[in-house]
């Protein structure tokens, strides 16, 4: 299970059909051939802009309650209606973007760094280091999905830092495993060996030769993981383990709104659509990126 096959790339000597990195023009051309990717890229930029400028875009204070006007339907004053406390659903959804993106980006960032460092160390140093780290990776991978985060969050309580911690703990191993495999597949390639015989230091080999060549699939995984982290966050918040209600968050909006499923379904429908849209944007972006960079790796597993 832990012994990764050493993948020596199939040597194909066509002057034009190249595997590996592309020239800039080729990349640009490839990108422009994929409208879905471009659109998703645009959407991500817009999402980030929304997250940053939430206070300007949202017409209402997301936490301003207006009890007499609760559970309103769609109207010109409240474009997506109001929630069970009379708060403007559109404004809350807009602010929810900020929460979700902050959590998703930090979690994926932390898991990525941890995974890359640990995976790289395991593969490069081999032997006992690899054995220990690999067992750790296996151990964390043995907890399916959000089970681990769930148990942890139930005890340490909700809150953004806590959820980032819990999700990072459950995600890093995925990155580490992929990174380890990638690095293993190139440590036996001849340019790494020749860097060794050239008398270069380990740190230089790792930083200059290993990481740049092994990181691409991990980066792609990271973009795909953004979507699944958003889903996990929403799921945990839905159960009431994620985000305090003070901070508008889609999952907890759905969780609180489910009481009103029949009388005011907008409480549930609006944030659900927001999650779907954002997750889809990141998935399409990640897939597109994978196509463009043409890195064939094992299927990335969303949780």
């Amino acid at each position, binding site marked *: 299970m832990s012994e990764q096959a050493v993948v020596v790339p199939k040597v194909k*000597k*066509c*002057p*034009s*059909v190249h595997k590996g990195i592309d020239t800039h023009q*080729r990349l640009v*051309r*490839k990108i422009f051939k994929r409208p879905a990717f471009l659109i998703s890229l645009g959407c991500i930029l817009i999402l980030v802009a929304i997250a940053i400028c939430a206070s300007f875009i949202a017409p209402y204070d997301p936490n301003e309650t207006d009890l007499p006007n609760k559970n309103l339907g769609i109207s010109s004053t409240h474009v997506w209606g109001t929630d069970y406390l009379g708060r403007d659903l559109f404004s809350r959804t807009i602010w929810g973007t900020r929460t979700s993106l902050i959590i998703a980006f930090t979690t994926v960032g932390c898991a990525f760094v941890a995974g890359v460092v640990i995976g790289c160390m395991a593969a490069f140093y081999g032997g006992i280091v690899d054995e220990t780290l690999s067992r750790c990776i296996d151990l964390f991978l043995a907890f399916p999905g959000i089970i681990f985060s769930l148990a942890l969050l139930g005890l340490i309580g909700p809150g953004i830092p806590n959820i980032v911690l819990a999700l990072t703990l459950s995600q890093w191993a995925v990155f580490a495993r992929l990174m380890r495999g990638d690095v293993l597949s190139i440590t036996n390639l001849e340019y790494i060996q020749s860097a060794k015989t050239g008398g270069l230091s380990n740190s230089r080999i790792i930083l200059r030769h290993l990481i740049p060549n092994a990181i691409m699939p991990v980066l792609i995984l990271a973009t795909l993981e953004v979507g699944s982290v958003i889903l996990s966050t929403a799921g945990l918040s839905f159960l009431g383990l994620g985000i305090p209600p003070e901070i508008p968050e889609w999952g907890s909006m759905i969780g609180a709104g489910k009481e009103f499923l029949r009388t005011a379904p907008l409480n549930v429908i609006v944030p659900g659509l927001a999650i779907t849209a954002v997750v889809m944007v990141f998935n399409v972006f990640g897939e597109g990126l994978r196509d463009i960079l043409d890195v064939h790796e094992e299927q990335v597993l969303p949780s």
Partner: protein
Amino acid sequence: MTLLDVQDLNVRFSTGEGIIHASRDVSFSLDTGEVLGLVGETGSGKSIIGQAVIRLLPSTAEITGDISFDGKNLNTLSEAAMHSLRGSSISLIPQNPSGALDPVARNGDQISEIVTGRFKKRSDIVNRVHVLLSSVGLVPSVRIADEFPHQLSGGMRQRLTTSIAITENPRLIIADEPTKGLDFRAREMTATVLADIQKQNQSSLLLITHDLDLAEQLCARIAVVYAGEIVEISPVSRIFAEPRHPYTRALIQAIPKNGLIPIPGQSPSLLDLPEGCSFADRCEYCADICRLTHPEFVYGTMNGGVRCHHPFSS
């Protein structure tokens, strides 16, 4: 009697970088029972020619020219009719046997699935498979038929694809580098097998290879391919003794035992072919005309010819 006749075959691939002209004005013919060798540099378009004949080029390829097989024009043949020729009348020994065998199908099944018609009973088919396997020297054939491709060595896999290719006694075998990557023992065996098949069945053989020794051993004529074109066709007896095209000569001199003399420079990119002769840049006899006009293929004696402005005289 002419079995295969290829006239002005052109194959182009449109890729992100431009159009790759992989095969240019290729014309040759092959008689029944004859062995024609295709030699030339890596990437010069040899396999493309073979795949064009059996019509297996990817859909991105744009093909023009006439290929007629046994009087039928393969270009205009319907896909169904073409498909009925494959395996039974025209077969292919693929360039890479390891990739060409289904990794999860048993070796015997890979043969038996194309055994048709005459053999109805299961035991007959099994027998036929064993006969085929032993005819290429794969013994004990009973065990090998039950194994999977990964359990065979490279040379055995190569011979397995060869045995698949001869299953239906095809009239034309396209053998694409059947000895690539084999050590000399295995290479020798394959050569023997191919020669035997060709003699026994009166099949024609289109032999694509890098290995000039093998070509010399098996072929009646040899076509030299350079940058997508056939630059010279000659009977084997003549081509090593009196090469007419400068590339052919340079190629022969680069063989270690002939002196290991390199050809300077690089072959042109198929994306961006020169106006004149494709070999002009590397040719020591290059004249002005060679850079300006593209030489035509000039037919000579004995079914041969050359594409050069100043061929060495024969």
